């Protein structure tokens, strides 16, 4: 396995997509095509990415570990970390343009759009993870606790895990 090409494939996948599983189709095509990964590696990596801390996009670190050991995990981490730096260019550009009311209205629209994007994505996730009344109650409880802004996120997650243990662990 050529580590430079390996790194480039991960870098390319991250460079042309945004977060989450966006880089999945590219990595899937390239790594399966070269015989460097199996279907099962992808399934495992996606599952781990859902559970592990940090952004969901870190699933490809898991894929790196499965296909190339610790070196693969390190290369994948680096490949994920570099392309996001491009955002600083946009931020610099934005800082210079910010005085204009048109630009301010434009970024206001971006903010509204971001909230709009969240809704169908969350709904899609809800359809696959909330499968019964217990799950719906946990989601509603977490929503309420989060909105109160008094309960640390880790406490919400621990409580939810405990509820899962009580509901589904028997």
């Amino acid at each position, binding site marked *: 396995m050529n580590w430079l090409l390996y790194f480039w494939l991960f870098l390319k996948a*991250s460079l042309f997509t945004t977060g989450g599983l966006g880089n999945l189709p590219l990595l899937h095509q390239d790594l399966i095509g070269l015989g460097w990964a199996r279907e099962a590696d992808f399934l495992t990596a996606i599952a781990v990415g859902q559970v592990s801390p*940090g952004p969901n996009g870190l699933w490809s670190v898991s894929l790196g*570990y499965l296909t190339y050991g610790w070196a693969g995990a390190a290369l994948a981490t680096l490949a994920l970390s570099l392309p996001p730096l491009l955002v600083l260019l946009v931020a610099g550009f934005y800082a210079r343009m910010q005085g204009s009311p048109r630009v301010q209205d*434009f970024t206001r629209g971006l903010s509204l*759009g*971001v909230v709009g994007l969240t809704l169908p994505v*969350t709904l899609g996730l809800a359809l696959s993870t909330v499968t019964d009344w217990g799950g719906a109650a946990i989601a509603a409880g977490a929503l309420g606790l989060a909105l109160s802004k008094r309960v640390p996120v880790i406490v919400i997650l621990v409580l939810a895990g405990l509820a899962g243990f009580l509901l589904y662990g028997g």
Partner: protein
Amino acid sequence: MSAGRRDSAWQVAPTGAGRPGLWDLFFTFVLLSLQSFGGGASTFMLINRTCLQRGWLDDQEFVRTWALAQVTPGINLLKLTILIGSRLRGWGGVAACVSGLMIPTALITALMTAGFALIRANPLVQAVMKGVMPATIGLSLAMALQMALPLFARARREGPARVSVSAGVLAAAAALMALGWISPVLVLLLSGGLTAALLALVPARPQPAPREQGGGQ
């Protein structure tokens, strides 16, 4: 929260809090990433709370930064982290925040991959995860609400027509995303363009002068 929301340049010291040290930034993000089990929603919420509590960004600045983080390639949460680091301490801040976020989480992700065969089989672990996953849905919804509120509070001060514009753009973005015809980045750019065009047609109601200062909710 003081009213200093005018950022004349991108890299500007946060009002009130002073510039945090690089080690402080690094350990803040290490601690935050270690608590963020269950994926992006909890990471996002933790970053949001940290920014607000430490006075690094106010509500509106945070949403604006998050929006900016969506329009270039790569993991959105990482871009958010980069923007926060850059704003607080320039390149050193970027290095401190990104390494603080990525090193522990990547390490744990690799370790969990190594142990996954053991974990996956365990029904108790499955039960716990079955509880954690719906909670992340609740966290996502809470974040969406918290991001929407300041935008609509501002529109309400500017008059009902601007509230309609805001609601319309939000709904249109949600519908376009749900349909999946075009990429999310394109949806965002359209939302921005549409808002700029519509708000140019709908002037803001004149602001009552003294209310402005108290608006940081």
